[in-house]
C-alpha cells in the first residue's frame, strides 16, 4: 500500500520533468515551421529567396515536393513546378531578390546572372518580364488606351503601373508572367471576340498559380456558369481586378463588387440591417459572401437553388445562426425549426421567411416593440388567414420566462414538476411493491397467505 503511494508520488514529481522535456523537444519544431512558413503566409511579404544553387528548375519538387525533406507550404499546393521561380528568385543576395521586379534594373539583373549560379532559362524569363514591364507601359501606360474587338466593343488596355506594383502581385510578377503570349510586338491576335470573353479567358492565367482557388471556383455557381460557356459569369478579375489585384480577405466584405452584376438585390440589401451596418463601415456586418458560401470564401459561392447552398432553406438557419446563435437555438427548438430539421424543407418557415433575405429587417427587438400587424403579415404567408391575435402567440426568439409568455413558462414548470412527481411516485410504488414481494410475498404463498391476510383485519 505504502509502496504504491510512494510510486504514485514519484510519478507525480516526475511528470513536470517529462512535460519540460517534451516542451523542449517541441519548441524547435514549431520555431522551424514558423521561420519557414510565416513569411509566405503573410500578405504582401516577399517570398523567401532560393538560398542554394539551382541546377534544374524542373527538379525543385524533388526536395520541396510533398514527400521531400523540405516540403512546400500547404498554400502552394497545386502550383506547377514552372511557377516556382516566378516568385522565388535564385539569388545570393536576399535583399535584392526580394526587391520589386518592376523596379529591378538591367544592371542589377546582370550582376545577379553573373554572380549567382542561377540557370540561364529562369533568369531569361524574369529578365524578359521585367524589361517588358517598362517596354509595355509605353503603350499600355496611356490612360484610355483601347483596342477594338471583333464584336466592335472596345477593350481597355490601359494598365496603372502604380496600382500593379501596390497590388498583392507587386514586386513579384511582371507583365509577361501573366501575359505569356505577349513577349513580342506586334502581339498575337486576340482570341476573344468580346470584352466578357476576354475577361472570362483571363481566369486561366490566374489558375496556373492559384490552382486550389481555381478548383473551388469551378464548383461555385460562377464557375459552373462559366464552364457552361456563359461569359457573363464572374471570373477572377471581375472581383479581384486584373492588375490592382487584392487578396480575398480584403475584398470579401465589399458588396459593391457583387453589385456590379447583382444590382437588383444589393439595392434592397443596402436598406437592410446588414447593409446599413456595412455602409457605416462595420466590417462585421454580413455581406454577400457570408450568406452565399459554406466555405467562407467567395470562390465557393453557391446558387440559392443548390440544396447544399448556405442560402438553401435547409441551411439558412445555420448560416444566419453563425452570427445569431441565440436565434438559431430558439429556432431549432421551435415548431418551424423542428419541421425543417425533420425534412419539411419545402414549407417550413426559415429565418428569411419572416425577416426577409436581402432586405433583412429586425421584426422586433429591445428598441422596437413587437408589431403584431407586421408579425401577422409574416405569419399569413404560410398560415392562411392568420390575424393579429394569432401573431400574439409568436414568442419571437426568446425563451419563456415569468415576464415573457408567463403562461407558457408556468405551464412548462407545472408539467415538469407534475411529470417528475407522478412518475417518481409510480417508480417508487413499483419498486417498493417488488421489494416487499421479494422479502415476504413468496413466503406467504407457501402458507396459504391469502386466508391469513383476511384474518388479520
Amino acid at each position: 500500500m505504502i509502496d504504491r503511494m510512494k510510486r504514485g508520488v514519484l510519478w507525480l514529481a516526475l511528470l513536470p520533468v517529462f512535460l519540460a522535456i517534451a516542451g523542449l523537444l517541441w519548441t524547435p519544431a514549431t520555431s522551424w515551421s514558423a521561420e519557414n512558413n510565416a513569411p509566405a503566409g503573410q500578405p504582401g511579404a516577399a517570398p523567401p529567396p532560393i538560398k542554394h544553387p539551382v541546377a534544374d528548375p524542373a527538379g525543385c519538387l524533388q526536395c520541396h515536393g510533398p514527400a521531400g525533406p523540405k516540403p512546400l507550404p500547404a498554400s502552394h499546393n497545386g502550383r506547377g513546378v514552372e511557377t516556382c521561380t516566378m516568385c522565388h528568385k535564385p539569388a545570393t543576395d536576399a535583399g535584392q531578390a526580394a526587391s520589386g521586379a518592376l523596379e529591378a534594373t538591367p544592371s542589377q539583373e546582370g550582376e545577379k546572372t553573373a554572380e549567382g549560379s542561377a540557370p540561364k532559362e529562369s533568369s531569361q524569363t524574369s529578365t524578359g518580364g521585367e524589361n517588358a514591364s517598362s517596354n509595355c507601359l509605353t503603350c499600355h501606360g496611356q490612360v484610355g488606351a483601347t483596342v477594338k474587338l471583333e464584336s466592335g466593343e472596345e477593350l481597355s488596355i490601359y494598365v496603372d503601373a502604380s496600382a500593379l506594383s501596390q497590388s498583392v502581385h507587386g514586386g513579384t510578377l511582371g507583365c509577361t508572367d501573366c501575359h505569356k503570349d505577349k513577349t513580342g510586338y506586334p502581339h498575337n491576335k486576340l482570341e476573344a471576340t468580346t470584352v466578357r470573353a476576354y475577361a472570362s479567358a483571363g481566369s486561366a492565367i490566374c489558375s496556373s498559380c492559384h490552382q486550389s482557388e481555381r478548383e473551388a471556383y469551378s464548383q461555385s455557381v460562377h464557375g459552373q456558369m462559366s464552364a457552361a460557356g456563359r461569359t457573363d459569369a464572374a471570373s477572377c478579375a471581375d472581383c479581384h481586378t486584373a492588375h490592382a489585384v487584392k487578396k480575398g480577405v480584403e475584398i470579401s466584405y465589399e458588396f459593391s463588387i457583387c453589385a456590379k452584376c447583382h444590382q437588383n438585390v444589393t439595392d434592397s440589401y443596402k436598406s437592410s440591417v446588414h447593409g446599413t451596418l456595412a455602409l457605416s463601415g462595420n466590417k462585421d456586418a454580413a455581406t454577400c459572401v457570408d450568406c452565399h458560401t459554406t466555405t467562407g470564401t467567395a470562390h465557393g459561392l453557391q446558387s440559392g437553388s443548390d440544396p447544399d447552398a448556405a442560402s438553401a432553406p435547409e441551411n439558412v438557419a445555420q448560416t444566419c445562426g453563425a452570427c445569431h446563435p441565440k436565434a438559431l437555438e430558439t429556432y431549432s427548438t421551435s415548431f418551424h425549426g423542428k419541421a425543417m430539421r425533420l425534412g419539411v424543407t419545402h414549407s417550413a418557415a426559415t429565418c428569411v421567411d419572416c425577416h426577409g433575405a436581402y432586405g433583412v429587417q429586425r421584426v422586433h427587438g429591445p428598441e422596437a416593440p413587437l408589431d403584431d400587424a407586421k408579425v401577422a403579415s409574416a405569419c399569413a404567408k404560410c398560415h392562411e388567414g392568420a390575424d393579429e391575435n394569432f401573431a400574439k402567440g409568436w414568442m419571437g426568439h426568446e425563451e419563456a420566462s415569468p415576464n415573457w409568455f408567463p403562461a407558457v413558462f408556468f405551464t412548462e414548470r407545472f408539467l415538469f414538476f407534475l411529470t417528475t412527481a407522478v412518475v417518481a411516485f409510480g417508480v417508487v410504488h413499483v419498486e417498493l411493491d417488488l421489494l416487499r414481494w421479494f422479502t415476504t410475498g413468496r413466503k406467504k404463498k407457501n402458507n396459504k397467505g391469502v386466508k391469513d391476510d383476511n384474518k388479520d383485519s
Partner: protein
Amino acid sequence: MTTKIVNPKTQDAEREIDEQAGTQKGATLAILWPFLAAVGLMFKRAVSSAFAYSSEARLDDGTEVLPERTLSEASWNELATAEGPDISRFDLHQRIQHILMFTSFIVLAATGLPQKFHTFGPSQWFITSLGGIEMVQTIHHVAAFVMLFDCLYHGVYLVHGILRKKDINPLRMIPSPKDFLDAAQMFLYFLGISDRQPKFDRYSYLEKFDYWAVFWGIAIIGGSGLVMLFPVQITKVLPGQLVPVALAAHSDEAVLAVGWIFIVHLFYAHLAPRVFPFNTSIFTGKVPRERYREEHPLDYRRILIKERRQQVREQGGPRLTLPVGGGAPDILPNPDSAGEESTQEPR
C-alpha cells in the same frame, strides 16, 4: 336539519360582529360559515351514500345488509372461498374501448416521441423509415382522432350506463378519502410496518389514478393537439398565447402519460408477480375468482351478495336476511328450504 345548524351559528357570528364592530373579515366569515357548513354536510352525505356499498347490498325485499359490520370474518371467508365461475369485470364495450385506447396510444407515442426528441438519432431513423415527417404526422393525427372517438364512445357509454341501465359501477371510479387511506396503508405494508394490505373496492387507488390520468391527459393532450392542428381557427376565438402553451403542454404531458403507462400501468397489468406474464382480463373481461377476491375483496363481497340474490330469485332458497348488529349470522344457502321460501319472494 341544515336550518338547525345555521341558526345558532349565525347568532354566534352576529355577536362576533358586534364585538369586532363590523370588521370586514368577520362579516365575510359570518356570512360564509353557514353555507360552508351546509355544503360540507351535504358533501359528506353524498359521499357516504354514493360510496357505501351497503346500498348495493340491499336485498330485493328491502332488507338492508351491512356485511362489513354484520358478518363475522369466518363466515365471509367460508363464503368467499367457495368455487365459482370467473368474475365478469369488463363488458364488451369497455374491452373495445380499451383496445381502441391502447392501440391509438401506442401509435401516438411511437409517432409523437420522435417528434419531441427529434435530434435523437433513432428518432430520425424512425421518421425517415416511416416515409418522412409528414407521413408520421398524418399517422399521428389519424391515431389522435381514433382516440378522440374512443373518448366520445366512452362518454356515451358512461351516460347510457348510469342513466339508463342504472349501473353505478362507473361512479365508483370517483376518488374518495378511502383511496388516500388505502395508499397510506399500502406504503405501510410495503415498508414492513404493517402486515395488512388495504382492501380495495371495485377500483383500487392505482386503478383510479390510471383512469383519471388518462382523463386529464386526454383533456390536456387532445385539447392542445387540436389547438396545434387548427391554430389559425382557434385563435379567432381564443387568445394567441394558447398556441405556444399548447405546444409546450402537449408533449410534456405526453411524456408523463408514456412514463406512467409504461412503468406503472404495464407493471401492474402484466408484469406484477401476481399476473405475470400476461393478464388477459382486459381482453376476455374475466378475472379468476381467486384473484378477484384478493385484489378487490370489498367488491367481491358485493358480487357475492348479488350472486346470492340471483340464486335465490332463480332457484329459490333461504332469504339472505341478516340481523343487523346480531351475532354470527347464517348466510350460507340452505338448499333444503328452497321450495318454501320461493313463494314468499317479493316481486
